[in-house]
């Protein structure tokens, strides 16, 4: 196993240990309000490099310094599609120089996805994980799964299932991460 990958896996393990140990029970914790599992500082996101709908390549390394929300979804997943407008509204609320939203799908319906986003009237970057490598490296077990990555590349939060991403609770989580870094 390459050292970088081993570091990543160790970090994931540590993050899971911390989840199990802490649990989202702290009063006033914005993660609790959003029903998002809080991950401890120090767990590094798995590096990735994926193509977008328009053929460009997004490298996670190029996002350093920004808070990144990564939403895993599929075209056949109703709850995934239902939460997308709220993701777009969340994106609009936040400073793009400090926050980036990415959606990742293992689907292959490029043209359909373009139509879908157009019909929704939203602009969200869609990354294609055709070999499912990134989804599996993030341990995505069901859809939608959303992961929040801090400015320094550490994993800070994980939500499985749909959320109202345009809610004050979601915005509070993102602002908390943007300001505190964790």
């Amino acid at each position, binding site marked *: 196993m390459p050292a970088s990958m081993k570091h990543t896996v160790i970090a994931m393990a540590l993050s899971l240990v911390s989840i199990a140990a802490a649990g989202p029970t702290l009063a006033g914790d914005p993660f609790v309000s959003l029903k998002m599992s809080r991950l401890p500082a120090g767990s590094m996101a798995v590096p990735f490099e994926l193509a977008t709908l328009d053929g460009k390549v997004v490298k996670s390394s190029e996002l350093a310094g920004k808070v990144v929300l990564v939403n895993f979804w599929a075209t056949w*997943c109703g709850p995934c599609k239902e939460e997308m407008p709220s993701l777009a509204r969340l994106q609009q609320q936040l400073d793009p120089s400090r926050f980036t939203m990415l959606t990742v799908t293992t689907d292959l*319906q490029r043209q359909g996805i373009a139509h879908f986003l157009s019909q929704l009237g939203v602009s969200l970057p869609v990354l294609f994980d055709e070999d499912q490598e990134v989804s599996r490296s993030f341990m995505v077990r*069901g859809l939608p799964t959303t992961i929040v990555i801090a400015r320094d590349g550490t994993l800070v939060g994980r939500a499985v299932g749909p959320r109202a991403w345009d809610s004050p609770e979601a915005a509070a989580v993102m602002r908390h991460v943007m300001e505190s870094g964790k």
Partner: protein
Amino acid sequence: MIERTFSTQGLIMMVGIVISAVSLVPMALAEPDQSLRFDPKLTTDHRVRAVVGPSVKIDDENRISLAWIEEDKDIRTVFYSRTDKSGGPIGAPVTVNQPTEAPYMRQEAPALAVVGDDVFLTWALTHPKLTPDKPFSNELRLSRSTNGGKTFSPSILVNDDEQVIGHSFDSIHVAPDGVVHVAWIDGREGKKESGTFVTRSTDRGRTVAKNLKVDDNTCVCCRTSLTTGADGTLYVAWRKVLPGDLRETVVARSTDGGNTYSSPVIVGHDKWVFPGCPHRPASVGTDRLGRLYVTWYTEGVDETPAVFLAYSDDRGETFSPKQKLNVSKGTFPDHPQMAVDPEGRLVFVWEEQSPVRREIVMSVSLDRGQTFSAPQKLNEKKGQTPTLSMNAKGLAVLAWMEHAMPAHRMVVQTLQLPAAKVLAKQEP
């Protein structure tokens, strides 16, 4: 907002898994069972953009059928291949769809059934009336060959609604009386959750009957599974959404050849609460005494990924206690599939995953699901989408995909099972 309870126990298990992956502790795999006779692996490399599949079947003449979908240069094609003997080589691929037909690409292989020289495949076609506001719509098509897959007739439409929606997560099965049964999921009634639908063909796939809804509140992304018992009882399995977002694998039966179906029966009572899409189907089969076997994935109340087997000796009215098949402490089990022969010999395949590992493992039961061999690793490179089939002589064929960049490698391997330890004979 949908809430999801947090499970410390499940996460602790995940921690163990990840830590085990870090330390590269081998999975708890037994040495190969010497009583199992594996033939050499057959492989084909596909240097195309994407491959989905394969599906696999083996008949009593040991002929192996494969079906898959490829995408290359934005052209999608449904392929079929027949291998005349278990030692290979894999037969040349034959195009199933017509050049004018654009298969809908999703993460599912075509459903495949073979009886003699009759080959049946169901697959999704990008809906010809697709509109920009319904971009993920597709029709379910049935293709058939009457010459062993040398050529295929133009496909026919399976779903009889004209709605521009999705019709997929299909399965196909040919009953002993030759009737072709198809099951799938669609949301034609416009309800929040989709329904499970079936139809049948009594003329070897030339036409299909009026569609029949078996049940509501179907988990929209977990594929259906069909089989028939020795007495002709037809079974269909799927994952049902119950109040509170409970996801339970259920089975309904038809004792009149598919005219009507019973209410679904919960198999494992997993009480798995999941507000999204698991995307993991059940697998069903029967032996010659009519024992119905069901294998499925769940995370249960403690959100611990596991694959299970349960069986029913009363035609799906009740089920045995579920037995866990996965044993590894170092990986997550996923995507189980099962095949059973008339003697009650069972073969199971599934994935074992960690952030850095994707293994294909198999286990065997020679006593009608009472005991199981230790899971045994099959793949050489990262593997995924295992599937299998077994003929009446206990010859199983297993197939999966491996990452052999820049190619997608399809791997096929046959396995001869030893005699059953507990014969499936008529009991007093």
